[in-house]
């Protein structure tokens, strides 16, 4: 890899075209990340797959039409218009199939993407064999390429990406409302159908803009990967939007710079791999919903469960069979290998029994609190309740116990 070229691409000094394309890719990533967030929240991520594959016949038809009218056939805005129109047809077909037949969205999406793409391939092979126009560049719609891009093309794409990013920015309130709470949005007089249609048009804009840079097979990665990665960092929609847009922008930026500095590296896959890297980091290490923090919390919780259950069993003088419970009690020094209880174990068991009794009483009095404060029943009671509350609980516990004793006597 050429470090110098990489750095100059990063600092926007690798020539006018590369700079424009890089800016375009950043804006595209930003817009894709935002649009994708809404798409994910509406549970429609894979509709973008149908949309992107459905662009191909449009590209082919636009090329044939323009070439037969005597043009070069390679005029980018024309090709993109064709792509947009056939993607819309694909989208309408998906909608029609899911509304008018028993088939579910997955089958409709799969059918549309494969058939439209297949038909697109038919058109491409026709174009290749009839030798009309300048075909170079049509193939790059499959996997994207920024090398050999004309200056006018680069500017067109940057403007399109910027426009899309701007449109998402202005529409974000409505889209958030619909994604977050459909019923509430409807009550506020927002048309869900129109909002979803707008969302699809934005996805379409991202797809069409990204065709030439990322390619139609992988463009959906730009609307799927960043929001899924962002989901691991936050539970809030507004934060998710920003993080997702950021991940998309960084992927576009680093990806374009990398592909400019390494020979034979197509831009699209590199952008996607950078996004994948950010995704993997999020999946594993994000503190909110990441795998490691989740595993750690689940283990810590399971430890507390075994500790409490084990101590209660020790206090009742019961034998313990659960291997994990035995392990926890041994590790905490509450039990010996022969199963006998240690002095600290005796004290801890008494304490656990008393806490358990108080928590049970608390729960009986406040059954609703269970789900609000999950796991607190396993924590030391004084960390969770105030002194006054504990004292009052203890008094009622004594009274109730005394009543039981009297009733039994």
């Amino acid at each position, binding site marked *: 890899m050429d470090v110098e070229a990489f750095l100059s691409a990063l600092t926007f000094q690798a020539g006018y075209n590369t700079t424009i394309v890089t800016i375009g890719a950043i804006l595209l990533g930003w817009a894709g990340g935002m649009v994708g967030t809404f798409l994910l929240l509406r549970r429609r991520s894979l509709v973008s797959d149908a949309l992107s594959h459905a662009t191909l016949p449009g590209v082919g038809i636009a090329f044939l039409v323009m070439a037969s009218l005597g043009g070069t056939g390679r005029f980018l805005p024309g090709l993109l218009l064709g792509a947009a129109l056939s993607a819309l047809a694909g989208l309408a077909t998906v909608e029609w199939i899911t509304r008018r037949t*028993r088939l579910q969205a997955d089958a409709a999406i799969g059918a549309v993407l494969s058939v439209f793409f297949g038909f697109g391939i038919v058109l491409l092979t026709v174009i290749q064999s009839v030798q009309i126009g300048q075909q170079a560049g049509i193939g790059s719609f499959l996997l994207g390429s920024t090398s050999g891009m004309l200056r006018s093309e680069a500017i067109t794409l940057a403007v399109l990406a910027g426009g899309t990013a701007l449109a998402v920015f202005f529409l974000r309130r409505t889209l958030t409302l619909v994604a977050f709470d459909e019923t509430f949005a409807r009550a506020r007089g927002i048309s869900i159908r129109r909002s979803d249609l707008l969302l699809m048009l934005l996805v379409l804009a991202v797809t069409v803009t990204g065709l030439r840079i990322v390619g139609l097979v992988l463009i959906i990665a730009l609307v799927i990967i960043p929001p899924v990665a962002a989901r691991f960092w936050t539970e809030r929609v507004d934060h998710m939007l920003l993080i997702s847009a950021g991940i998309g922008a960084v992927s576009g930026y680093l990806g374009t710079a990398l592909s400019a500095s390494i020979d034979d590296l197509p831009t699209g896959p590199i952008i996607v791999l950078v996004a994948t890297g950010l995704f993997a980091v999020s999946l594993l290490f994000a503190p909110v919903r990441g795998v490691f923090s989740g595993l750690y919390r689940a283990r810590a*919780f399971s430890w507390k469960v075994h500790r409490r259950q084990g101590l209660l069993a020790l206090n009742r003088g019961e034998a313990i069979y659960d291997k994990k419970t035995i392990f926890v009690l041994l590790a905490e020094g509450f039990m010996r290998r022969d199963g006998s209880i240690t002095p600290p174990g005796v004290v801890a068991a008494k304490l656990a029994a008393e806490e358990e009794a108080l928590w049970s009483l608390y729960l*009986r009095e406040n059954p*609703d609190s*269970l789900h609000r404060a999950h*796991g607190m*029943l396993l924590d030391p009671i004084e960390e969770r309740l105030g002194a006054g509350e504990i004292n009052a609980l203890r008094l009622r516990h004594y009274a109730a116990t005394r009543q039981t004793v009297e009733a039994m006597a």
Partner: protein
Amino acid sequence: MLNRVDQPPALSISGLSVAYGDKPALSAVNAVFHQGRMSAVIGPNGAGKSTLLKAAMGMVPLITGKVEFFGLPLAAARNRVAYVPQRASVDWDFPASVIDVVMMGLYGELGPFRFAGKKHRDKARECLREVDLEPLADRQIGQLSGGQQQRVFIARALAQKADLLILDEPLAGVDAATERTIVTLLKKLAREGAAIITVHHDLSTVRDYYDDVLIMNVRTVANGTVADTFTEQKLADAYGGRLVGAGLPAPVPGAKVEA
């Protein structure tokens, strides 16, 4: 309680804890369900009723706890247990006829490979007759009403010839006639010695339908006979303020649904 020392409980659960991550779904739940009894599992939404039954069936990982069917681990008793999932958990547009679904209940008997013969079809038809659906045996399942679909599920459980039926909300969203049919049938099975465990929502019918009850809210609140356990106090312990003022219907001994 009852003199059932001679036979092990159909299902005994002790110290069962289940969590989704660090959110407890079940915390040290204890419960015993006996043979020959109709038992209800009740509790507020999110109390973990379905999770308890799924955990017992080994479909949810346990943190700790012990589950025994007829005194045996699940693997040894699987063929004696029939599980009826919630009706909404499957795609009723599936290309299958009513009898096809009931025949699925014979999996335990036939195993993965053996062919199903006329004998087995007759068996399935018999189970359909029990739920008054035999005339619809060849109907596509998507054409049935909700109540009829629920009865197909029950017929499939009958085909399993199980000693324990575990049903997740069998009376949710069914019409009154279906509810009557199902309850009558389950009571008959219980009289013949089977254990019936049902997740139940309608507190007003608990006294009429069930012998025993488990009241739970992530933890066990109470478990025993309806007469001893289904009290205003215990329900308030599980449901909290949500039941205050609503009151419970007074027990009306004469109003029981008779099989």
